[in-house]
């Protein structure tokens, strides 16, 4: 590594927003190196190289040179072959094959970039279902994204090389450049007229270059992955179309969920309170009949039974009302509502809530019902002896509730289960409901609800 990488890194620094802000500390670093004061260097390297994300970003950039080289080679060969055979009839099959290989390759690139970005890059290929085999293949060839894929593979070599340089500089730039005089001395023939200048300048620039590399590691990885997303991901229009699709689906789901909920209420009323009241009326009727026959003893039994039915009807109505909308949630928020929900439960529930105080909105209500349903399942079906409920807001400001029980598992999101209705309710808020319940347990029910209605799942649309 000679001057070229240094120039490229310098150019990258200038391209970057705030390039001037970097050049000033650079001068300080150069001064520090001249004074043999390495404290500042160590500090900067420590702060920028040992971050939670630097590992995967380094991997992404280093591998980028390999994949870039391979991608470039593939696309150049494929393109040349298709062009060369273009005059012959076999040019077409070659092009079709090339397009297929390109797509596979770019799927790999999408997955690689997704690791750095922390979000999946959906495949933007339009579904082609009409026409025969040949027509479909030709449609793939004329698809805009096929060509964008090819373009990405073409530029991924220089992009990958630049990324590789940044990562290499960050991690090994300091020792490598400090050792420059050794190469000059050890490798005969490498030495030119300016070998003396190199031997002096390279060690001097070692610290600033390494620090620059460390500084640029994170932005470079994000920039390369972002470029991949831009070229390989769906366009804004496609994203909007998907969004509309998702919204229509979740809206239908929300309507479904509402209907299911109403049916549940109707069923609970019919089988519960309504039946109790009929039984109560029946008991009173029988008591009346007995009193007319002056059979006070039996009449008293019927009255006692009637009172029991009245009590049970009141309990069932109370539970039903609570199931429709707990007033404590509206009045005192999710924390208080969950506390009330879990108190006196059997099996005992361990509750941990770590939420900023906020008025209860649709997502708090949905979270509440997820917990209520999961607890009901744990009590009714799982035979759990311990249940824990946690609620918190994650880094993406999503409200997360998680219910874990040590029961026998087997909970499912299948249609008809209480959880499936809740999944639709959660999806209508752009959230997701995840159920893990292997046979034998444990069961984890987790709902993630993004803050603010209308945000697409997984982040904002690119502006």
């Amino acid at each position, binding site marked *: 590594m000679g001057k070229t990488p240094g120039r490229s890194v310098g150019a990258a620094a200038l391209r970057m927003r705030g390039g001037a802000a970097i050049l000033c500390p650079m001068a300080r670093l150069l001064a520090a190196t001249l004074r043999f004061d390495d404290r500042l260097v160590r500090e900067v390297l420590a702060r920028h190289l040992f971050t939670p994300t630097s590992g995967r970003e380094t991997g992404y950039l280093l591998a980028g040179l390999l994949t870039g080289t391979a991608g470039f080679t593939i696309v150049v060969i494929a393109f040349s072959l298709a062009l060369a055979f273009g005059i012959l009839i076999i040019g077409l099959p070659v092009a079709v094959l090339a397009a297929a290989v390109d797509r596979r390759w770019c799927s790999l690139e999408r997955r690689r970039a997704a690791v750095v970005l922390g979000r999946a890059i959906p495949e933007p290929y339009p579904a082609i279902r009409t026409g025969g085999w040949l027509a479909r293949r030709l449609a793939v060839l004329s698809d805009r994204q096929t060509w964008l894929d090819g373009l990405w593979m073409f530029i991924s070599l220089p992009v990958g090389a630049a990324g590789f340089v940044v990562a290499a500089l960050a991690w090994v730039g300091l020792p490598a450049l400090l050792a420059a005089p050794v190469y000059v001395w050890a490798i005969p023939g490498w030495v030119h007229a300016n070998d003396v200048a190199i031997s002096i300048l390279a060690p001097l620039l070692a610290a600033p270059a390494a620090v620059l590399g460390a500084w640029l590691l994170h932005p470079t990885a994000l920039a390369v992955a972002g470029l991949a997303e831009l070229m390989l991901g769906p366009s804004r229009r496609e994203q909007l179309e998907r969004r509309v699709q998702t919204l229509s689906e979740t809206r239908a789901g929300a309507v479904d969920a509402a209907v299911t909920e109403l049916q549940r209420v109707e069923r609970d009323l019919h089988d519960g309170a309504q039946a109790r009241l009929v039984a109560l009326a*029946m008991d009173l009727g029988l008591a009346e009949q007995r009193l007319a026959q002056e059979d006070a003893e039996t009449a008293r039994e019927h009255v006692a039974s009637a009172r029991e039915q009245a009590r049970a009807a009141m309990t069932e109505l109370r539970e039903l009302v609570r199931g429709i909308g707990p007033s404590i949630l509206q009045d005192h928020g999710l924390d208080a509502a969950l506390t009330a929900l879990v108190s006196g439960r059997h099996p005992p529930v361990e509750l941990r809530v770590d939420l900023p105080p906020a008025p209860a909105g649709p997502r708090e209500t949905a979270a509440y019902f997820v917990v209520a349903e999961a607890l009901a399942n744990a009590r009714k079906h799982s035979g759990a002896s311990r249940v824990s409920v946690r609620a918190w807001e994650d880094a993406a400001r999503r409200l997360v509730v998680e219910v874990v029980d040590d029961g026998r598992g087997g909970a499912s999101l299948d249609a008809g289960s209480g959880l499936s209705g809740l999944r639709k309710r959660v999806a209508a808020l752009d959230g997701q409901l995840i159920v893990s319940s292997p046979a034998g347990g444990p069961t984890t029910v987790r709902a993630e609800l993004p803050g603010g209605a209308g945000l697409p799942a997984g982040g904002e649309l690119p502006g």
Partner: protein
Amino acid sequence: MGAAGEAPMRVVICEDLALLRDGLRRLLHDNGMEVVAEVADGARFVSAAVGHKPDVCVVDVRLPPTFRDEGLRAALAARERIPGLPVLILSQHVEQTYAAELLADGVGGVGYLLKDRVADVDDFVAAVRRVAGGGTVLDPEVVAQILARRRSTALDSLTPREREVLALMAEGRSNQAIAEALVVTPGAVEKHVSSIFGRLGLAAGDEHNRRVLAVLAFLRSGR
């Protein structure tokens, strides 16, 4: 009509909620009937009805698996196997179309009551006996629905008084009971009844059968 004589009346109960099933059994038993079978779904009901040939069946309209009108379907199926099998349908809410479906075969021995009616034990037991005797008992609620929604039909040819008499007939009341309700003499009621039969074009014949057909005409007028 009721056969409250020597042998106790034999009843099959079909109700999915154990609470109400037990209550009904107790109620009927206390009133001198014998519950020969208690089932919780439509399919079992049909086989129980065919197997026991009871004097009367008490069936909840809403049964598993769909909790809609399986009870009604099962009752109709049972009556297809045993024509005229007396069936009293109970429901949390009443719909005249259901009643019309039950009565459509014109045989009678059909009752359709709100579950609430079990509270008036004597009336309820009387209704069960009337259905067992081949009578027709419609819930006053159904009758009220029909009167409220009546469209232009043959019933328009009836006088208001005759419509009142017919409505009470639909509830399963005897001429005597109708006379009491309207505070008229039984003779006057009989005159109204035969006038109703005439206006509805029900040829002279079996009085009981004509009552069923008149009630059916009344039911259909509400659609």
